[in-house]
């Protein structure tokens, strides 16, 4: 699976909507799809999936505001791992 597929599948599980696949610029916080507990749940799930240690204290909320931004974050992390 590609990085984007892994991110979007985990995001769909946490968010409970497949819209995350359809609209990569979806405003996850503005649309109340993710709250702080959901974000941490996603961080934990994606840390496990990619085998990369990510701590909530490293995450800028702005960098996780849309599905596209989260994909970009992980593409960068996977490349530099």
């Amino acid at each position, binding site marked *: 699976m590609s990085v984007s597929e892994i991110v979007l599948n985990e995001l769909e599980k946490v*968010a*409970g909507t497949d*819209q995350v696949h359809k609209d990569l610029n979806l405003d996850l916080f503005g649309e109340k799809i993710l709250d*702080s507990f959901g974000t*941490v749940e996603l961080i934990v799930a994606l840390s496990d999936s990619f085998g990369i240690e990510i701590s*909530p*204290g490293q995450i800028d*909320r702005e960098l996780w505001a849309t599905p596209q931004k989260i994909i970009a974050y992980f593409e960068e992390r996977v490349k530099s791992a």
Partner: protein
Amino acid sequence: MNLIEQIDQWSRKTPGRNAHISDGQTLTYAELTQRSNALAESLSKQLPADHSPIAVQGHKEPEMLIAFLGIVKSGHPYIPLDSSLPSQRVETILETAKAAMLLTPDQVKELVKPSQADPSTHSIHHPAPEDAWYIIFTSGSTGEPKGVVITCGCLESFIHWISCEHDFAEGAETFLNQAPFSFDLSVMDLYASLVSGGTLFSLTKDMIADPKRLFQVLRHSEISCWVSTPSFAQFCLTEPAFKEQMIPQVKKFWFCGETLAPEVAGSLLERFPKAEVWNTYGPTEATVATTSIRITQEIIKRYSPLPVGKPKPDCEIHILENGADVKSGERGEIVIAGPNVSAGYIHRPDLTERAFYQVNHMRAYRTGDLGHYQDGYLFFDGRMDFQIKLHGYRIEIGDIENNLHALTSVRDAVVIPIMKNNKADYLAAFVVLKERMNKSDFEITRTLKRELGGRLPDYMIPRKFIFVEQFPMTHNGKADRRKLAEGLK
């Protein structure tokens, strides 16, 4: 000394010490006393001395503390409302409580302008034990919130207990304030701090929503007494750097509001080896907490789930089944009797009569919680009804369902808490629509979340919406909640 005197003494002993720090704003004890006296004087001139409640809506501004004390000193109880509460819910609360007025932090600022001459202290009201001090509104199963009246006597009983049990260092502690003031967990940190001359360190909802900022703030907080829901501590524990080096001053974690998992307590003891971990239990109707226990590694090894402790000395806990005490060790409904039990629900004698009565000449409250005793400790075994705790917030499932039913496009709705590790993880709403129209599930969800957001606070909005033609039914003709929940796993 009464509670007002206990708090005001710090404006003489340590006038320059911060009573409150919130997002860069500070309030000293001298300012707190001066401004709350000024507010009391102003309110006394404006309002009749009829003890009618005054609502105050804000978030973590220093004016919230000024308002709470100023309102009480003017002879009225206060109703704390968070700024996130939708206006329709606020209206319902104001009507139910017959509130005399609604104050905001900006209005408080205006009423207590620092240039004002020192206010007279003649008009300061010192509440009698039976006078209401605050009224906190909680979720009601019918869809309307109910206001729990906490008297001065209730609060004094609670404060006396925690002060004796914890022996806070006078004028030297910093207390974490995580919960909004509308949630009675905040009473624990607010008044423990004010009576001991401590500093209340507030986290705002924007800080909590931005983990990077949150941990930066915590690093500089100098918190010595951590007061939060277990969920919030669990949330912080996902950050590997959340340990003693981040907040070296912490000497106590003090929990209330929901079940404390042994794993959370164990992780805290490992990461903060010098700190104590305390678990407490109690409904809003019995003033924040009624039982407590210090959780040690030995307790964790011996019990899972963890006990919630032993009752405070001036109250009794009964475990009842069909109105009679159960045999030792058996499970039954937890009934709390003592001076910390609320006077009832404001202007709702019907609800008050159902839940409150007298036991051994003490006021008693039927909690609706199941519990049992083992080895002298009380254990919480869940609810008898559809009330849940989600991230520490008390929610009646019926409250959400009734508000969903009130939306024009909804024919029927069932809300289910999705459980993870024996705790509610999130809410899912199963909805039968009157008409599907030509919209995607996402668009309908977005509309329903927005409409519901106009009626309920954010924490009550289900995370997932699932649209169905009809619900699976039980033999009794009711929606089969178990089957619906299983469909989501």
